[in-house]
């Protein structure tokens, strides 16, 4: 059996936090420190928004649902702008191992 193919459009859910992760909220996002890797990151405010959205949902969200939620917060932005920003933030969150795309069951 080959590796699982994950949908790029989600649905997205929070990944279990690694042991020893520290975080600190700052006005321009959230600082994260992973003790295992020694890596420090500054999560963008949009990345923090998506993480908090997934925490509130207590389940998975598709990219389209996340874009809708962002658009409600930023109604002056076009859908295209929201999608582009969300895709960038999702990539950031995946890279930080904060979220993972779940295979549709």
């Amino acid at each position, binding site marked *: 059996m080959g590796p699982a193919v994950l949908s790029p459009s989600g649905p997205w859910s929070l990944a279990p936090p690694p042991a020893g992760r520290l975080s600190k909220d700052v006005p321009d996002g959230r600082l994260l420190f992973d003790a295992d890797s020694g890596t420090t990151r*500054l999560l963008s405010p949009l990345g923090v928004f998506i993480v908090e959205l997934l925490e509130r949902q207590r389940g998975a969200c598709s990219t389209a649902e996340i874009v809708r939620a962002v658009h409600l917060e930023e109604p002056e932005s076009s859908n295209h702008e929201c999608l582009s920003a969300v895709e960038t933030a999702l990539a950031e969150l995946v890279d930080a191992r904060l979220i993972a795309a779940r295979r549709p069951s």
Partner: protein
Amino acid sequence: MKVGELSARELGQALRGPGLRVATGPFQCRFGSDIAAVGPELARLYAEHELVAADDSFIDFHVRVASSGGLRRWIRPQALFSVDAVTPFSPLPRSQALAMLEWGLNWCVTAYCHHQLVLHAACVARAGRAMILPAPPGSGKSTLTAALVHRGWRLLSDELTLVDYDAAHLNGTTRPVNLKNDSIGVIARFAPEAVLSRPMHDTSKGTVALMAPPPASVRAAAEPAVPAWIVLPRWRAGASARLTPLEPGAAFMQLAENAMNYHLLGATGFEALGRLVDRCEAWQFEYGELDEAIAALDAFAPLGPKGAA
């Protein structure tokens, strides 16, 4: 007793023999050298520093810069740095012995002082409030620092800023400022009273000269300062002085990049840096001319009626 009160003979004897024991901020160092040119330069650069009595307390760093043996005594003579009899670096031309001693001492602080967060940053203070100036080489950090400390600011450090884990206080070593290339002439003209070593040419950093810390800074060396501002300077020819606010998260990341032992300290380093950022306003600062730059930074901490730094 101060280093500057020693006669040339006493100084030379100390350097060649038991060592010159000098207090530099929170550290006590023992300098040794058999290179004749080093003594007079050390005497000028450390003139205001207090000597540590021979029977007094612990010495943190036993550092020495000595002539290489063999042929290198006469043909292209070299100098070798050692700390506690360990020689971490390759030899350099003997004409660079003084710079090697200072760079070696910086290495000691970086390599051994993990009871504090060590930032690769200059630090100056006024009225007890400190400004941290982290920046990569070539940003004009040392030039700006040298200028500030000749215009009412106190030098804590030109190169390494020491942060307590609770980030409540900063400590400096109040050692000489490392000026490079054009900065040497710039500071000689800007502050004719500045005490500069002779230039050392063809070092890995180009031509280098060391500037003695102002006497008032040395006298206040043991006084910690409260962190208040993080300023990331960048010199650009012809630029007007301009301060741009820097968000705390971005400031944190800049400091982490400039912290020498952040990765070693792990969670402790993260928390210390977080507390430091909480305590400070952060700015990016572009400048092109020293008088204008100082006026902009003076606005943070106007001198009181006594002009105390």
